């Protein structure tokens, strides 16, 4: 059994492009809300991952429906995944360093630059 599910004639298939776009919009807005409202710094990083996944979902949907032969969206999604992995590693290292110095992960107490 092959791994890919290639669906011929998908352009007029059962699922419209807009369904994927709406799904990605829901995911992105959830991520934005979590980013603004989270008190825990780890949850902020998780929300950023949610937003990156929403963007990737958009790229893949466009790649499949509008750019089926060149699939540039998939290449872009791979680069986004790479940058997201680097961002997660550096972000969590910064978080550990912050925790070591401030003894907390509460976002409201990281206010050294507030004036």
């Amino acid at each position: 059994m092959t791994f890919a599910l290639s669906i011929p004639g998908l352009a007029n298939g059962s699922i419209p492009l807009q369904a994927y776009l709406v799904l990605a919009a829901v995911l992105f807005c959830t991520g934005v809300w979590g980013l603004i409202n989270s008190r825990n710094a780890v949850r902020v990083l998780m929300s950023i991952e949610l937003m990156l996944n929403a963007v990737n979902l958009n790229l893949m949907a466009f790649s499949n429906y509008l750019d089926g032969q060149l699939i540039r969206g998939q290449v872009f999604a791979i680069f986004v995944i790479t940058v997201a992995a680097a961002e997660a590693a550096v972000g969590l290292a910064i978080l550990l360093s912050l925790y070591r110095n401030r003894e907390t992960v509460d976002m409201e107490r990281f206010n050294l630059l507030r004036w």
Partner: protein
Amino acid sequence: MTIASTTELICFLVLSTTLVLGSLGVVLLPNIVYSAFLLGGVFLSVAGLYLLLNASFVAAAQVLVYVGAVNVLILFAIMLVNKKETLAAIPGLALRRLLSAAVCLGLFGLLLRVAFTTNWALPGPLPVGEEATVRIGEHLFSDYLLPFELASVLLLMAMIGAIVLARRDVFSSDVITGEPVDQGLIEKARTPLLLEQRALEKTP
């Protein structure tokens, strides 16, 4: 392999329900460990949606990188900073949440409007399907070669940066000037961990 459109629709509905509920759980659940595991579920359902979109290679990369690396990294971070702390109350927290929810709903409405009013160039060219991996390889080694190499440099920089940021021991003397370093500036005296507290209680 071709799947019937009904099967495709059922797969899409199940995956999207998992995705939406999981992402809401990631944001709303009070226990952050549950959030981290739900985040893994969200990543897996996004990988399933990639499979529905004829992208097997990116789906595999998603599972490997996100579920295998990023999610495990987040779980480790939660374990390392796991301290019960009572968060100080903030005035106007409910108002802030309502305002940000209104902003997010406005953004969502805008995205919906864009999605439904734009004239997409449908139907586009036929998807390549199982040849996608070959095409991605051709792209990466021809017209996207420079971003590909830059990504490797970026990953190296991120790896070294993460190690430097997260390492605990500091040098006793400055590397450049040779002067002794004031340790208190670098690392604040912390409250002893639970095990160390027990050891301190036993010693006298």
